């Protein structure tokens, strides 16, 4: 690699970093709304090692957001593994948009006695 090739490689690396940074900045600068905010939204609160509501009924296309209010991490893992959160520390959230009708049972993989269900019905 010549010096100029090395320099241009460095520039293109920096360019990628800048592009990535721009994406991040755009996301931060935009309104603080989930990406799928256009569709219906629902929330599940995690408190005292319980998903509340334990059974949530939503229409297809709904984005459900789980937020951990406990001082201990939890996860949201669909039993069939169609979706799975990272460990959610205190006040962390996880969102999933339900694109098809059906029943989705989930649990906390750290505390498996914590279970919940999202029932997704066809949009009216």
């Amino acid at each position, binding site marked *: 690699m010549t010096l100029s090739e090395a320099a241009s490689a460095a520039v293109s690396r920096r360019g990628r970093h800048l592009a990535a940074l721009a994406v991040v900045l755009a996301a931060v600068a935009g309104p603080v709304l989930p990406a799928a905010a256009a569709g219906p939204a629902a929330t599940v609160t995690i408190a005292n090692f319980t998903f509340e509501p334990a059974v949530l009924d939503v229409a297809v296309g709904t984005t459900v957001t789980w937020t951990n209010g406990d001082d201990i991490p939890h996860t949201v893992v669909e039993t069939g593994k169609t979706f799975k959160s990272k460990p959610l520390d205190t006040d962390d959230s996880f969102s999933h948009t339900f694109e098809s009708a059906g029943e989705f049972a989930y649990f906390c993989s750290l*505390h498996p006695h914590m279970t919940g269900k999202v029932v997704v019905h066809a949009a009216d």
Partner: protein
Amino acid sequence: MRDDDAPRPDADGIDRRGFLECMTWAGTGLLWSVAGGLPQAALMSSAAAATPAAKPFTFLQISDSHVGFSKPANPDALGTLKEAVARIKALPEKPAFVIHTGDISHLSRDEEFDDAEKLIQEAGLPVFYVPGEHDLLDEEPGKSYLRRFGGKARGAGWYSFDFGGVHYVGLVNVVNLQAGGLGNLGAEQLEWLAKDVAGLSSETPIVVFAHIPLWTVYPEWGWGTSDGAQALSMLRRFGSVTVLNGHIHQVMQKVEGNVAFHTARSTAFPQPAPGTAPSAGPMKVPAGELRKYLGIATVDFVRGDAPLAIVDRPLAG
């Protein structure tokens, strides 16, 4: 058949025959020593007086250090772990090794593992770890834990070793947990356990340690292991079995036939007694009282058939 490649405290006069002399809580650690393979408890001081001619040895259990935890229940989990290590170093009798029964870290972060490991190493003793569920939160669950603490362990991190005539088995019951269930060992590990103890004489004292209690403490809070009874049935023929667990951050004990169950306190934060709160989780206690809940219990094993007794000795107060 035991695996002779299994990890064990190297050096320090380990042999494959000997006697558990007595066991004692000290600091936030549970200090065990053994004599004659049958447990009896007494206060540390009286145990020293009653020690038989056979040279005793002790080992120590610490648990649930949750390094990285910084919530109101204990804003400085690393600080209280440091206090526990200071207690270990200050013990009049140096333990042969340390067992850590999991939740070393709070979120499996590298810096949490680093901080914990560095601090615990300051005790200057061999340390045997098993993971808690908080130690398997990395991208590829358990990769970081096994790289650091796995040694020659099998599967998700289970292994056995021998010291002073006692056979120690470290089990992992925090992987592949199923919805609605409890802690879980799994078929592969149970199969390994059966083989591991198959060649042992029934007179060999057994110490089993794992993160979540192997006995059912409180299933409503997930405090138990779904297939723990299967593991215990493999140990029924042994004259002395001691089961050491963590996870519930409080001392609980039960004796069932030849099996003595005991859970250790956390070095980080207390949890409520079963059913006394809406849920498990870090329990806030009045300012200045934390160390009472992180306290100490003393347990001794001596030769004879006197019953096991464990004496709680709070860190403070």
